[in-house]
Structures are given as structure tokens and as C-alpha cells.
């Protein structure tokens, strides 16, 4: 490995996971993904160290680091902080330049983002009031059914029917679910209802920003096949297949920005 080239890192500290991506020569060189703890500085550093370890690099080898996600405000290791909306746009554009619409579902919020051909954000909308429609909501539901979070979507795909569910409040949806289970409703049908209710909520966000093809789904929840299918159905679109783990898109975008900021600042030609 040649160390005379520049390395750029993006670190995305979210509410459930911390992610990092290292870029070299415009290529993804290494990645790291760890669960977030209460200490967001530590979580970000853990994710970054994991990527550095995989790459066989030291922190000093990095030319520039951009921090993003809710932990960006406490990222002393980063040269600059940028919101995850901009980073998801840049990361998606880097991998899939034809994408114009992004659905980002993370641990605690969901976003509808419209971008132009250069990956610049032209409009966005976010869920306002509640964790309903986010990764945290699905986590609560996985707890109710005592299944692993990553299995929820696949279980929902086995539904023979879809139970209509409320999408406005995580706590109410949890009690609604418990009462449906008590009434003997099949778990897969309830889970199908939950996924569709979240998809409808997301469709509501797009009523303002609009949809233009191609459409991409980023964030941790994008790994949930049931969610992907429900969104495709609600928005009547086909979602572009991700080239990398969609949970890493924010960190990737941060690394892409690290590259361009450092160039602008004259750190390399």
C-alpha cells in the first residue's frame, strides 16, 4: 500500500450506530461500523479506529476528516462538521449519480431528500414529531415480538394479510400491537401493517419535496427488505440496489466532502 497518497475519512455518529469510511484516490479504502454508546466522541473514534485498523493506517495518515450525524457537534477528531442530510446526498451521488431522490431512515429520524446531478440538496423534509417511522420504532416492535431487528422485514414478507396500523405514535403503536397479538392476530400480518404504516408516513414527507427517479434508500433501516418493499409499494417506485451497506452512505458522503474541503483548503492539488 502506498502511503504517499491522500486519505480522507467521514465519520457518521447516529443514535444507534457509528460509521466511518476512508477514501483513497476516490475509492472506498476501508469502513467501520460499531454500535453507538452514550459517549458520542468515543463512538465516533471507535468507528474510525476500526476503519483505520482494517486499512492498516494511523489517524495521522488521514488528510482530512468530516464528522456528521447527531454526534457531529462533539467530534474533536474532525476538521469540519456537516449535517447528515448533505452527507447522504453526497454519498449517494458518489455511488449512484443517476439518483435524484433519497429516502434516509436512521435510528431516530427519517428524511426525504431531493438532489441534483451533482449531489447538491435541492429540498428536504424530515419527520417532526415522533420516533414513529424510524429505526427506533422498528426496534421497539422487534422487542414486542422478541425477534432480532434484522429479521423483522423478512417476517413481514410472509404475511397473508396486512393489519391496518396507526403511524402517528411509537408508544400507541406498541400498545396497539400488543392488543392485536392478544386478540390472536398473526405476527407477520401485524408486522406487514407496521411496515406499511411507516411507508405511508414516509410517503407523506414526499408530498412536499416530490419524487424524481432514480430513488435510493439509505440508512440502517434500508437493510430491512420488508421496509424496502413497503416503500416501493407506497411510493410506486423501484429503489436502486445499493452498491455498499446503505448504513454507510452518510459516512461515505462525509469522506467525499472531506476530499473536496481539503482540496479547497489547498491541502493537496
Amino acid at each position, binding site marked *: 500500500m502506498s502511503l504517499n497518497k491522500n486519505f480522507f475519512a467521514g465519520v457518521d455518529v447516529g443514535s444507534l450506530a457509528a460509521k466511518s469510511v476512508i477514501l483513497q484516490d476516490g475509492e472506498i479504502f476501508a469502513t467501520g461500523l460499531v454500535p453507538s454508546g452514550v459517549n458520542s466522541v468515543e463512538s465516533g473514534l471507535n468507528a474510525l479506529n476500526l476503519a483505520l485498523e482494517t486499512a492498516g493506517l494511523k489517524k495521522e495518515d488521514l488528510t482530512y476528516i468530516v464528522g456528521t450525524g447527531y454526534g457531529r457537534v462533539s467530534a474533536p477528531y474532525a476538521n469540519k462538521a456537516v449535517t447528515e*442530510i448533505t452527507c447522504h446526498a453526497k454519498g449517494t451521488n458518489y455511488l449512484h449519480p443517476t439518483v435524484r431522490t433519497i429516502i434516509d431512515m436512521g435510528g431516530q429520524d427519517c428524511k426525504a431528500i431531493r438532489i441534483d446531478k451533482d449531489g447538491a*440538496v*435541492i*429540498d*428536504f423534509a424530515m419527520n417532526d414529531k415522533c420516533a414513529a417511522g424510524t429505526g427506533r420504532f422498528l426496534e421497539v416492535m422487534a422487542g414486542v415480538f422478541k425477534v432480532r431487528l434484522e429479521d423483522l422485514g423478512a417476517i413481514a414478507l410472509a404475511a397473508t394479510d396486512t393489519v391496518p396500523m396507526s403511524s402517528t405514535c411509537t408508544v400507541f403503536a406498541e400498545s396497539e400491537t400488543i392488543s392485536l397479538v392478544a386478540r390472536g392476530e398473526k405476527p407477520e400480518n401485524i408486522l406487514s401493517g407496521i411496515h406499511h404504516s411507516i411507508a405511508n408516513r414516509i410517503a407523506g414527507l414526499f408530498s412536499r419535496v416530490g419524487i424524481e427517479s432514480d430513488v435510493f434508500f439509505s440508512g440502517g433501516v434500508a437493510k430491512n427488505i420488508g421496509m424496502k418493499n413497503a416503500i416501493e409499494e407506497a411510493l410506486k417506485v423501484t429503489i436502486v440496489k445499493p452498491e455498499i451497506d446503505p448504513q454507510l452512505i452518510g459516512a461515505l458522503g462525509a469522506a467525499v466532502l472531506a476530499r473536496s474541503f481539503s482540496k479547497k483548503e489547498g491541502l493537496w492539488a
Partner: protein
Amino acid sequence: MPNSKLFKYPEEIKDKFISTKGLKFKNGTTVSSAEIWEFMTEEAPRRFPYAFDANANNIGRFSDDVHFLSGIKRAYLTLTFKDRLLKEHAAGTPTVLVQGGQAMDAYYAAGAIPVRPGLVMQWAQSMEEGLNLRQSETRGINILESGRRKISIDACNQISAHAAIDNKVVPIDLIAPFLCLRCSDMAFLVETHRNREHDIPRYMVDYPVDHENKPWAAEYIEVELKELITKIAALSGRKITDEVIFDEIRLENRGRKIANEIAELWWNAENPPINSTDFFAIAFLANDFLGDPVASVDLLEQSKQEIEERVKNNVKGYGVPDDAKRLYICGSCVGPNAHHAETAGAVFVGRDDNWSCISVLVEEEGNPYLNIAKSMLEYPYEQRTEKRAEWTAEQVRRSRASGVIFMYQWGCNYQSGVARMISDIIREKTGVPTTFVEVGELGRSEATEQSTNRVEAFIEMV
């Protein structure tokens, strides 16, 4: 906020500051700049340490532009609000709760000090001294939650003001808001103060929300204003003549004119001559008058002179970033944190709520009651939604804004209902990107991530 530092005015500006004019007050006294300096550097930091907290998230933080000397005087007016009101109140001047977005002319003319809910909240917070930012905000939250417990958890944060009055944290002598129903807090206001044990009299000034093409509307408000002024005059003991009211109208018109001239100067300057905090403070002064229209107008005049000087010398206000994104702010009773927005690369160029009242002058001849009524009916913010949006779009153009943020409080039902429509109309008419953000943390410096994240992302997008 564990690492908060206290902000201090630097000694090197002292000589220049104390050589400037002092402030004239409506009781005929003048406070010299040396006295203001003494208060702002010695007494106020001891009594109100929270106001000097340099934390970037401190939403009530004063401007960092210490060379804009009028800004220091404006902070003085804010921090002496409590002392001035308590003194006036003890001397028999009635304090009156006003709400509903209308002008203050009638209240001041009748010899009262009108106080809007935002200032009631600040006043209530300042009644306990020596608090740091966290302690002061905890005090504010406790007052707010007592209101929510008593009245409704669905109320917007302005319920704190009603709770502070109801709990006698601050002395208010009359509750006399305009029943302007585009403020959904009106229902909670009425609910707080109706049938209460407390002895505060009430007079709800009726205001026809749907007044377009209603020729009777001005005369209807005229009658209401006469009743209001009679009620206040009975408390203040002031003898009211048309000339007394016209004197007040002329004074407040002067303040409004100066504020408009400042806006034109600011908008057309190559570099924003003062930062967002100072610029918005000007609008607030001309709209609210901080308990003393004489002092406020005096300060507006001094501010204008300083700004003219800066524009002439192409001086940029301290804190305004280079190539700042110019943001126009819409919505009632809440706005983004100016320090945070400037750090993220933006500057505020105007806001519809405060500027609406300032944009309309009251006629200075004829029937003063009818003139005030007519001006109230002309406020752009009080027109039907499309008309309001068109006026705002025009403001956006004139201020050369590059983005619009419509912010509203959780519990503000009308503003939340029209936010999208207004944002869409502005975007359509001006081509400028818009967004709307609901906030729940009015006046708080901690746990603001959800709203700052949206504002920051919007600034990046613009």
C-alpha cells in the same frame, strides 16, 4: 453546558462608549453612557449571569459586536426591564398584558406599560437573581410546566406568561389582549384568566380576523379601542385627549420610520453592517418599545447613525460570515438561534412577524382611535394567508434573501396550519428555497439538536 464562559465587554471600548450620548426616558430622566457602562460591566453580570453566558446555544445571548455601541445600550434596556417596570408599577403605572400581534400606541397613550407574553416570560425569569443559564432556564421551564399542568399540555410555550401572571410571579394590573384568533393561544389565555381567584381585571379587545371587504371593521375596532383606553386610563389616572393619543402615535411612528430606514440601509448595503442579533433587536425595539417608547426611539436614532456610518465605510457587522446565506424568517413568537445560524454561514435579513407592525404607519391627523384601528387592519401579517404570503414574498425579494425558514412553536395551531402554504407561495413567487420547522424548545439552550440540525441542513442546502 458544562464549559460555559461568561461574556465581558472589553475595557478598551469603555472610553469610546462613555463618550456617546446616554438614553432619555419617558419620565424625563437621562441615563448617561457612563452609568450604562457601569451597569453592564459590574451590576448586571452579578445580578443576571445567565444573560452573559457565552455558550453559542444561548438563544438570549447578546450580540458579540461590541463595537456597535447601540447594541450595548439595547442590552441595557433589556436587563433594566425588571427594575424599570417594578419601579413604575410601584409608582402607580398600570402594567397590561397585551397579545394578538397588534400595536402598542393605545396602551402607552393611556398611560400603561403594555407587556407581550415573550417579555412577561423574560421578566418572570429575571425575578430571581444570580442564576446561571441552566438555573435560569430551569426556572423558566418550571413556570411553563406549571401553566401546562394547570391549563393544558396542548398549549404553546407562551402559556408560561399566563402562568407567571396567574401565579403572581410578576405584577400585571390588566389583562387586555386583542382576540386575534390567528393566535391559537387565545383560547388558553382566556382559559387561564377566566373565573380565576386572582383579582386581575380583564378586557378582551375584539378583533375581526376575517376583515377583508368589511367596511365596518375599522369602526368596530375604534369602539373597542375607546373602551380599552377608558379602562386603562381609569387605572393610570391619565386624562385622555385626542392630542395625548396623537403625541404617542407621532412618537411610535418615528420609531417605525427609523426602523424601516434602517432595514433599507441594511438590505442595500454591500456588507451587512450589523449582525442578525443586532438587526432583529432593532425590529423588536420598534415593535415592542421595551417598556419605554421614548428611550427606544432615542436608541433607534442612535443605532441608525452608527449603521449609516458603517455602511458609508463598508464595515461588516461582527459575526456576519463572509458570503453569508441571507435567510428571511417567518412565523410567530419563535425564530432560529442567530449565533448558531451565523456560525453555520448565514445571516438573518428580516422577519415577517415583527416587521408587519412596523411596516404600517398610523395617520397623524383626524380621529386617533379610527386611525389606529385602520392601521391594525392593514398589517400584512393579519391578512388572509395568500395576501400575507405575497407581502412576505415581496420582503424576501427586497431583502435579497437566498432562503426562507418558517418556524413555529409546537402548539401554535394556526401558524403550523399555514406554514406550508406560505412557504410554497413564497417559493413559487421568488424561486427562493423555503423550509418549515416546528420547535418545542422555545427559549432553551439545551436539547435543541432537532431544530438546529434542520436549520443547519437548510443553510448547507441554500
